[in-house]
């Protein structure tokens, strides 16, 4: 299959996914399970990464603005900007693409190769709707929350880095991060995150759902899914940045 065919098949898949769930109660149960699997269980890693990346961004910025003419509070200001605009939404989404993407592909792929998907279909269940829609909803609504926490922890990481290294004063830093708060930037980050969340939920589902073969192929599909999800996020990031900020 070439790329065009894959893209066509992906959108055809979405056509089946976006149908009314056959039973509200089962959908709700699945949604809560996905919120836990895809959301809750990703909070820890996202927080950990955001905190340390925030620290590194602050240190790097401090090391690069040693010109005495540039006021020190710009370190806090620049750190805040980079974290809100890029590091929290994009960096954390890429991490989630790896963690959640491989989980989704391998769990759906295993269901495919052990005929569990056929079993659903033969009962008269729309398996795509049943398996994928709860993942999309869970990711699209939960990831903005994760990213918001990541923003906060990233900025806090910068503060901690400052106070531990003494490269900049925490008073300057706090002054810097309060400077010129632009709520559109946060909205921009949230919009980006929702788009990335959609990609993280659907692209790995596609790879898992259409896998053929056995456990080896499921493993391969998982790697493929992570690669493609990351590539698509990076490309979309470029276009969204141009569209929303350009």
């Amino acid at each position, binding site marked *: 299959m070439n790329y065009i065919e894959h893209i066509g098949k992906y959108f055809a898949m979405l056509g089946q996914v976006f149908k009314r769930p056959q*039973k509200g*109660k089962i959908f709700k149960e699945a949604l809560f399970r996905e919120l836990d699997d895809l959301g809750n269980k990703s909070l820890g890693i996202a927080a950990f990464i955001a905190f340390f990346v925030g620290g590194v961004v602050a240190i790097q910025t401090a090391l690069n603005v040693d010109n005495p003419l540039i006021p020190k509070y710009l370190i806090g200001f620049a750190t805040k900007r980079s974290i809100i605009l890029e590091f929290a939404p994009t960096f954390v989404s890429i991490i989630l693409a790896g963690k959640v993407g491989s989980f989704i592909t391998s769990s759906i792929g295993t269901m495919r190769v052990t005929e569990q998907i056929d079993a659903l*279909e*033969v*009962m008269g*269940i729309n398996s795509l709707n049943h398996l994928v829609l709860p993942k999309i909803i869970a990711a699209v609504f939960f990831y903005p929350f994760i990213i918001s926490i990541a923003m906060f922890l990233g900025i806090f990481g910068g503060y901690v880095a400052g106070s531990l290294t003494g490269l900049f004063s925490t008073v300057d830093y706090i002054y810097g991060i309060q400077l010129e708060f632009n709520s559109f930037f946060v909205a921009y980050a949230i919009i980006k995150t929702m788009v990335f969340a959609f990609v993280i939920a659907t692209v790995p589902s596609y790879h898992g759902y259409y896998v053929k073969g056995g456990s080896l192929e499921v493993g391969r599909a998982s790697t493929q899914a992570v690669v493609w999800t990351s590539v698509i996020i990076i490309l979309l990031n470029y276009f969204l940045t141009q569209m929303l900020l350009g």
Partner: protein
Amino acid sequence: MIEVKDIHKSFGEAHILKGISATFEKGKTSLIIGQSGSGKTVFIKSMLGLHIPEEGDICYDGINYNDMSTDARRDLRKEIGMVFQGSALFDSSTVEENVMFPLKMFTMQTKAEMLERVNFVLNRVDLNNANGKYPAELSGGMQKRVAIARAIVMNPKYLFCDEPNSGLDPRTAILIDNLIQEITDEYNIITIINTHDMNSVMEIGEKIIFLENGLKAWEGTNKDIFKTDNKAVTSFVYSSNLFKKVRQAYLMEG
């Protein structure tokens, strides 16, 4: 009635079903037999639309599956029970959840009603006290029985079983055969079973279709099967010495 008309199915270069036609009637248990790799699984999966045949028609009570909309197909499938060769249980759900799943999805029953029905069918496959276990914690034969319970829990109009008693001990195998037979009679449904098991052939083979190399090589009843001279059938049936003796006894009886 299910009518299958001249279906062909290939995977890439490999032509697996080469034009098979058959009819399956209400209240009858039909067996599809044949060597491993002869296309039995592909045949019933094609009937269910899990494989899409390149040619041919499958009519359920006069309505052509090819002409049905996606929704109509789903409605039809709600009346189908299927036991997969590999059981295909939902591995992240317990036995009880597996069997209850179709009820939860398609009925408005209360939890207690569903539980009663689940326990009833589990009891019929002789599987008590396994409700809380996960498929990975069961033996192969127990998984098979859960799969059978799940397939019959909704009282299907059409029951498909892909080797329902492979991997079962003789006593349980007979129990399953009898259960399937009983259900078929009781609810007047169409039952189609893939099997290698000659015991089943003798017990419940009201109608037997013998597949060889993707073609229907023979069709008849369990009475005919010991009389036929069809090479393919005799070499399949009498590959076991036991059945050579059965045939002799049978022919002597007349």
